[in-house]
């Protein structure tokens, strides 16, 4: 409902994301404590309909998969060390096509690095996380409002496409408090979980036009459900080197590619006639917004693209980028991971990169790079 009154509170994005999860219909938070995702855990214990404390991240991913297979929507939050332990389980959930949300709060690596220092270092790992480089959807947020919106979109996507979704964030994004008008947040309607339209005769992995199998939970009274992480046929049974099974495997990529327009999210602040474009995401977006504001005050023409659908890479993002003569990527990591995903490691004179570790990239550093 539209409202004109303001409701100013002092909060953080961990709270906003947790609240959005529950409003969108998430059933259970399964947590293993890790900095800087601890606020999710703490808010999760207070707000989720159910909460479970896992003994390690491998178990967390298995419990989540079990819940999801039984028809409940699970959420967890972790950081890279936890994600690394979940990698095999995430491949399993991905192959089984189980909806779930993983909130990944990035911190400085490698290894345990600095638990309380933010970073944007995990996108490359996510890009290759699924063996065979099948795309796992990775969304990011850049302020409180889109923390809310992108959480909602992540859950909608997870259920619509029957897939684990990663909401990529970082320490400073979810642990910085800000004054915020919560009346700005849009209404969230709980996402309907189960399929009502089933192609008869039912087979657990049979799909139609949408390329996503019906979501029927284990234990269903009408349909016999078989879920499988190994290469499987439509019946959900292991079948090697068989056209139906191979089609099912390929479909894991195709379902996203074919329908990518349904989940392409970005903020494009276009300056007419600008030849320069700043491309960024997540925690570096705020500094980029400030930098663009100052550059324009100084008469510099520059556009800003804040990417929210990081993976798989939507064509729309590349279409925008390709209209510019000079592109400046801003990311808090050592080499420019997103840049490398889009353009590889080859030196391209059109592309600049502002990178830093251990601290936020400042607007001043971005301005300097754009002016160079």
């Amino acid at each position, binding site marked *: 409902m539209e409202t004109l009154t303001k409701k100013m509170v002092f909060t953080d994005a961990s709270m906003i994301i947790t*609240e959005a999860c529950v409003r969108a219909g998430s059933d259970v938070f399964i947590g293993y404590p890790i900095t800087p995702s601890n606020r999710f855990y703490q808010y999760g214990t207070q707000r989720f309909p159910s909460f479970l404390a896992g003994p390690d991240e491998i178990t967390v991913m298995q419990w989540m998969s079990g819940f999801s297979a039984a028809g409940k929507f699970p959420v967890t939050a972790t950081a890279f060390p936890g994600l690394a332990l979940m990698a095999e389980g995430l491949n399993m959930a991905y192959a089984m096509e189980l909806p779930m949300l993983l909130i990944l709060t990035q911190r400085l690596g490698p290894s345990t690095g600095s638990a309380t220092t933010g970073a944007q270092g995990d996108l490359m790992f996510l890009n290759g996380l699924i063996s065979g480089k099948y795309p796992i959807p990775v969304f990011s947020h850049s302020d409180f409002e889109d923390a809310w919106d992108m959480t909602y979109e992540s859950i909608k996507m997870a259920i619509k496409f029957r897939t684990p979704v990663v909401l990529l964030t970082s320490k400073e994004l979810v642990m910085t*408090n*800000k004054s915020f008008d919560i009346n700005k947040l849009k209404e969230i309607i709980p996402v309907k979980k189960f399929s009502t339209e089933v192609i008869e005769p039912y087979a657990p992995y049979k799909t139609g036009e949408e390329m996503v199998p019906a979501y029927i939970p284990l*234990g269903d009274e009408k349909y*016999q459900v078989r879920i*499988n992480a190994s290469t499987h046929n439509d019946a959900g049974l292991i079948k090697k080197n068989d056209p139906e099974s191979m089609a099912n495997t390929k479909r894991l990529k195709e379902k996203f590619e074919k329908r990518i327009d349904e989940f392409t999210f970005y903020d494009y602040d276009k300056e007419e006639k600008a030849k320069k474009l700043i491309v960024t995401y997540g925690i570096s977006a705020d500094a980029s917004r400030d930098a663009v504001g100052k550059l324009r005050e100084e008469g510099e023409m520059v556009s800003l693209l804040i990417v929210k659908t990081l993976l798989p890479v939507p064509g729309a993002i590349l279409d925008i980028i390709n209209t510019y003569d000079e592109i400046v990527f801003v990311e808090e990591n050592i080499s420019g991971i997103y840049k490398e995903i889009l353009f590889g490691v080859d030196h391209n004179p059109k592309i600049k990169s502002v990178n830093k570790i251990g601290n936020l990239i*400042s607007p001043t550093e971005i301005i300097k790079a754009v002016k160079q």
Partner: protein
Amino acid sequence: MKKILTKMKMPFCQGCGHGIIVRSIAKALEQLGYENKDTIIVSDIGCSGLVDPLFDTHSIHGLHGRAPALGVGVSLGLDNPGKKVIVIQGDGGVTIGLQHVLEAARRNIDITLVVMNNLLYGMTGGQISGLSTRKFKEQRDFEVDVPPFDIVKLAHVSGAAFSARATSIKTYPDVMKEALEVNGFSIVEFSSLCTSYAFKKLDQLQEVIEPPEIFKNERIPVRIHQRVTNSLFDKLDVVEKQFDSKIKSGIGVVVAGSAGGGVQSAAKMLATAGMLSGLHATMKGEYPVTVGTGFSVAEVILSRSYVNYTGLEKPDVVIIVSEDGLNKVRGKIKDNDTVIIDSSLKTDEYPDAIYGDFVRNAGKRGAALAALAYWLKNSTLIDVDALKKAVSTHKYSKVLLEAIDKGMS
């Protein structure tokens, strides 16, 4: 009633013990009256992981060793407690995922775990597992005298409602029935002969099998509870503008002290006071992972406009109330900052700094807030009454208000 098993031929090698176990599970289910869709088979990796198509039930096939954890999730996620979750794995699966078995037992989750123990990894060529025997033929160097895990006893001491080992084929269906009737976590280790590798790899085959046994714990199974909760936002104070501020565009304040010294809460009060004065506020804290020792630093930005970038390229005001805090911000203070330091800190690094007796007057826990009040009173950028208003809803408001008064005196 429909048969629990499909018509599929057993996929195991000739004479493999796994087929007998599968038939025993089916027989027990049928005798207990379970229908096909009442049962969910959760399978692991290895020869034991070939069972899915044998059961004409629901099934889920996961990873090596993780099936008990997957089964826990399924069991807790089901709305209908009348469904039976049966997890099947081998001794290799138990070895790699031992934690999951103990965790399920500890919580007494309502699943039945079937361990097909053939004392080796069959699918990969007969290697030794954690549940194998000392009679393994292959050279194992110093491991020769290492005993196998007794998963039955381990599950029992972890809290399983029912733990059993069955070694004679005749007893299989009955032991399985008993396990299925348990409300909670039950585990049965069945001895299974791997015809492909057992004779090659094991000595004195009769002796390697542990004796049958049954253990019980009287326990209620853990079930998941669905709660109705309130919005997290309900707990937040809604702040409305009640005061005016002289801050023109924006100001950045750093409060540096020791953990446990009220630094973070003082900074939050300042942010709230800013909001009460119609300003936008941001705050971030930095402190070691330990609690109550070392530094505690907070950064607050108060601004007329919405704050995007929350990094402080250069603070305007730095308040230091302890040695830990001083050490942490040293080097970050620029020439033209306002620096307010507690007089107990003898430092001549900042010749223009203002000194005050915050710790002596307001105590260690009140010093940060007292110093903020002192700064506000002298700068008049924000009304001190806004700070007082900010602390008024705090559970220790009385002490905090005293600290503010001490800071201003």
